[in-house]
């Protein structure tokens, strides 16, 4: 259990897929213009990550090394398609915003990366922990980025049609946050920030 928690925590800070491992960047930057969309993206990734980690970890003993990639990827693709179909059928507004990015979860470097690096070598329980940890780490950043960009860029935060926060109609935020340079820029700062944080964490760990 201790290990489970440790693996889970790892994804959140010291091995955060986005800020430390630098994978899964595409969707992070692309869909984070809106909080709602990025949250759903995060959930979708968690779902796919956990499910595929479980399955891959379960079948890892029967997977010939030469064809492991095709097998992993078909498993992942199946879960992604499920997400795709479900969102299309039940959350059309989210679907229309996420659009391309759902199929692209398949090639989201986090998913295949974790399959290769973790699930293929570890048991089911730990793989679940890894999936949740990595997924949460991803979601944390992407949703935070989404909230920031939407709030400060457009002046309000909308979730499923409800305005959560609003700066009022007179607010003229820096629109650039909603455009692609803004995404790169903010993410650069996030990486810098999380690095500084990590450095302090590591230092503390060493001191202990």
């Amino acid at each position: 259990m201790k290990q489970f928690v440790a693996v889970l925590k790892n994804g959140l800070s010291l091995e955060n897929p986005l800020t430390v491992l630098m994978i899964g960047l595409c969707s992070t930057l692309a869909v984070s213009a809106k909080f709602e969309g990025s949250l759903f993206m995060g959930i979708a990734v968690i779902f796919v990550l956990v499910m595929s980690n479980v399955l891959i970890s379960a079948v890892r003993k029967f997977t010939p090394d030469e064809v492991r990639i095709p097998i992993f990827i078909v498993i992942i693709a199946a879960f992604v398609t499920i997400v795709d179909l479900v969102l299309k059928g039940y959350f059309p507004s989210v679907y229309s915003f996420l659009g391309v990015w759902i199929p692209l979860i398949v090639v989201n470097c986090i998913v295949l990366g974790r399959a290769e690096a973790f699930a293929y070598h570890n048991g089911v329980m730990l793989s679940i922990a890894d999936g949740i940890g990595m997924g949460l780490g991803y979601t944390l950043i992407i949703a935070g980025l989404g909230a920031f960009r939407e709030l400060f860029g457009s002046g309000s935060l909308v979730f499923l049609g409800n305005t959560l926060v609003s700066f009022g109609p007179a607010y003229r935020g820096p629109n650039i946050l909603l455009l692609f340079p803004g995404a790169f820029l903010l993410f650069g700062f996030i990486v810098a920030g999380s690095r500084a944080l990590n450095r302090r964490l590591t230092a503390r760990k060493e001191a202990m």
Partner: protein
Amino acid sequence: MRDNIYVRLGLPVLLVCIVSAAGLAMTYSFTKGPIEAQAREAEQKSLTACLPEAKTFEKIADASMLAKASTAAGDVTVDGLFRAVDGTGATVGAGLLVGSRGYGGPIRMAVGVDRNGKVVGVTIVSMNETPGLGSKVVDDKTFLPRFKGLASADEARKVDTITGATKSSRGVRKGVEAALAAFTAIGGVEGVSAK
């Protein structure tokens, strides 16, 4: 047999493929209904918004009519022609789903035309315009109403565009022009109501 590489590698892959495909096919059959319902509902909603008088919109599937409409619309795509029917079953006009082109990509919109061939309303179904700029075509509450009452493509062409969102507003305008042209091409209300 076990040593055959084709079998050793092929079996696991085949198995995964079969299971995945079957699973997906099943999921698809489950979600097919909701997906189509969603799509239909969305269509109806945006059509109703631009032609509130109508209760239902019936899709016109006549290939020759669609072809005529497409030709008349030019660059703009005609994604759907609908017969607008009120509670009594009478044709009150037509709804057109068209796809035009803005600054950031396609702009899909619904145009409602009444019995007299006049635009009743225009709604944007989806677009990818820059927030704060191109999005003015929706945010600027005076823009879409400018098309109300126009009866021909020529009239529509005179609608003023929005400064700073020229390309987007011109895109919307082109969509309306095309919708009107298509409506004329298929023979106006008569054409639409002819079953």
